[in-house]
């Protein structure tokens, strides 16, 4: 019954009045940025991170986590109502959800998304509570060689997050790792690539990279062709799904939760992959696959459950290994470090209140989200009418203030323009920004563990394949790489073949 004791500790922390309030603020903000196209959870968390320095650590993390999973809810609302996914994982929901809305079943679609998300969130919270402690114990056995291989695996798996070709995603990861080497070398203190600028000795702050790549670049994309967002919002009636709809929701929700919980735990897997996989599964096993794309409620309930479950369980690698699986998690690593806590296997024993409090807060957050989303749906729809001309100057201004307040260093502010422009050009060339940010955060870890492992093994490079756990992780890495690159090769073949014809 250790689990119950731990959960009791968690709830006693999470139910403290200031924690409930900031959990509410987090999910409220998360829903808002999920609803609003043009600003996502990554940029929001990046902007708010400096503010949370003044909070208690557990309060700060509860709020930041709330923004992350709150955005999953909000993203589905716009996907269903106006066919505009506010968050990348909601792209799948838009397929059938918007079709349902056009048939006058918007209420059922929204309810399916909310109920599915809630059930998935509840189950995934339990999965997190059960899976994290044993994993943390395993992680305590990890040496530098294992960590190196694990980080490498996480980076390669994150290719799956990217839409473009595997080759470009790989290059983005490597570029992120490379940019992470700017600043003083950890072992010798030699300043690298700083161009004699003292302000760069501490490296480039990853908040600047995140705000630039996800905030500024996105704004430039939106300003390419400005058109007024005529929100053709469907009327929402009959929130409660019909008996037939309820019957058809059960299976997809259960399967979506399972798929999402599993894929979320993989470092680098994440919620986007989960919702796509769930959609594919539902379509394959459905007796009526022809309905998919024309308003099948299974196509809403499954992916929505899956992405919420994955959003929750993706805290497992963060809390047990210190490995972020998503750019938002990478920012949360920063939040841990600012408060003097190193995310990793020790958190669970050294900071039990923080660990269990965060987990319990996710369940509370899910309850708050259902309350926020279903009755207040009209409010969120109205938010879509905020003109972009107000929104984007606000993002730029708050981003500048936020990055400056990190350490009162003007270079952190200049960096958002630099990374904004770099990100903009690369995104226009078909490269996704998420792998770069993960590479940037994990790069220093990769270098540190590589060098430490080699020092311990006295320069013997085979240490990575002779230690069993490390060898298994590297084998998985190679497998992931092959899987990621294979479709590209096959497509090349097809192209070549059609040319022969």
């Amino acid at each position, binding site marked *: 019954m250790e689990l119950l004791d731990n959960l009791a500790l968690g709830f006693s922390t999470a139910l403290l009045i200031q924690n409930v309030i900031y959990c509410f603020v987090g999910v409220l903000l998360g829903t808002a940025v999920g609803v609003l196209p043009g600003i996502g959870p990554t940029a929001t968390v990046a902007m708010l991170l400096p503010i949370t320095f*003044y909070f208690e650590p557990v309060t700060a993390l509860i709020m930041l986590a709330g923004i992350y999973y709150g955005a999953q809810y909000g993203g589905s609302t716009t996907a269903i109502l106006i066919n505009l996914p506010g968050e990348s994982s909601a792209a799948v929901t838009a397929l059938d959800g918007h079709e349902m809305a056009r048939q006058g079943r918007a209420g059922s679609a929204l309810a399916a998304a909310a109920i599915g998300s809630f059930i998935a969130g509840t189950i995934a919270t339990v999965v997190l509570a059960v899976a994290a402690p044993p994993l943390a114990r395993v992680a305590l056995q990890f040496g530098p060689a294992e960590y190196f291989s694990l980080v490498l695996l996480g980076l390669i798996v994150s290719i799956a997050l990217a839409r473009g*070709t595997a*080759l*470009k995603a790989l*290059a983005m990861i*490597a*570029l992120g*790792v*490379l940019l992470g*080497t700017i600043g003083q*070398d950890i*072992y*010798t203190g*030699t300043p*690298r*690539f700083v161009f004699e600028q003292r302000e760069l000795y501490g490296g480039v702050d990853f908040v600047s990279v995140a705000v630039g790549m996800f905030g*500024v670049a996105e*704004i*430039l994309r939106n*300003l*390419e*062709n*400005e058109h007024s967002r005529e929100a053709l919002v469907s009327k929402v009636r009959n929130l409660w799904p019909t008996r037939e709809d309820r019957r058809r929701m059960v299976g997809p929700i259960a399967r979506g939760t399972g798929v999402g919980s599993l894929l979320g735990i993989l470092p680098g897997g994440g919620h986007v992959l989960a919702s796509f996989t769930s959609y594919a599964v539902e379509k394959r096993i459905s007796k009526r696959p022809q309905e998919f794309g024309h308003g099948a409620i299974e196509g809403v309930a499954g992916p929505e459950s899956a992405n919420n479950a994955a959003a929750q369980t993706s805290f497992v690698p963060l809390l047990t290994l210190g490995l972020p699986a998503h750019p938002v998690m990478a920012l949360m690593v920063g939040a841990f470090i600012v408060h003097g806590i190193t995310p990793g296997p020790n958190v669970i024993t050294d900071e039990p209140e923080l660990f269990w409090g965060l987990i319990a807060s996710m369940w509370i957050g899910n309850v708050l989200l259902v309350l926020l989303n279903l009755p207040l749906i009209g409010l969120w729809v109205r938010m879509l009418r905020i003109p*972009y*001309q*107000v929104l*984007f*100057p606000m993002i*730029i*201004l*708050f981003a*500048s*203030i936020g990055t*400056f*307040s990190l350490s009162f260093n*003007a*270079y952190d*502010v*200049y960096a*958002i*323009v630099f990374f*904004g*422009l*770099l990100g*903009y*050009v*690369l995104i*226009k*060339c*078909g*490269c996704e920004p998420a792998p770069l940010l993960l590479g940037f955060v994990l790069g220093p870890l990769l270098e540190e563990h*590589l*060098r430490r492992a*080699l*020092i311990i093994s*006295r*320069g013997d*490079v085979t240490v990575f394949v002779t230690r069993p756990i490390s060898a298994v992780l590297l084998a998985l890495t190679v497998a992931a790489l092959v899987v990621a690159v294979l479709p590209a090769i096959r497509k090349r073949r097809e*192209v*070549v073949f059609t040319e022969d014809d």
Partner: protein
Amino acid sequence: MERRRSTPDVLAGAIFMVIGGAFAVGSLGYELGTPLRMGPGAFPMLVGAIVAALGLAIVVKGLVAGEAITFGSIPWRAIGAIVLAVVFFGTTVRGLGFVPTCAVTALLTALASTRVRLLTAVAVAAGLTVAATLIFVVGLQLRIPLWGPWLGF
């Protein structure tokens, strides 16, 4: 072959090659060390070479079998206004203080849109300055003077 040449692919690859190459060459200036004690230059050198190699692969693929991506138009006005606004913020926030810097930054940014009227931009800038001051200085106690030393306060 001409049909499948993809300019965005070639451009992306070229960017990776330039940055990767620059880092690899730059790291030659630092100690490379041995596998037992890798110097500060070894890791950037390795990764820089990988980035450059991947860039080369993307260029080659872009010339032979590129992805069909349309590059689209470039919002020069928005780029200019936003770069100017953020650089202005960085350089003047200490000297001019929080309020004037925010006002100018917000105004410049608002003008990035081609569809905005000057009056709307001024209104947006004023509103955002008030909001930012209330949130960051009053609410969160950010330690930046409201009016800076350059203004004689």
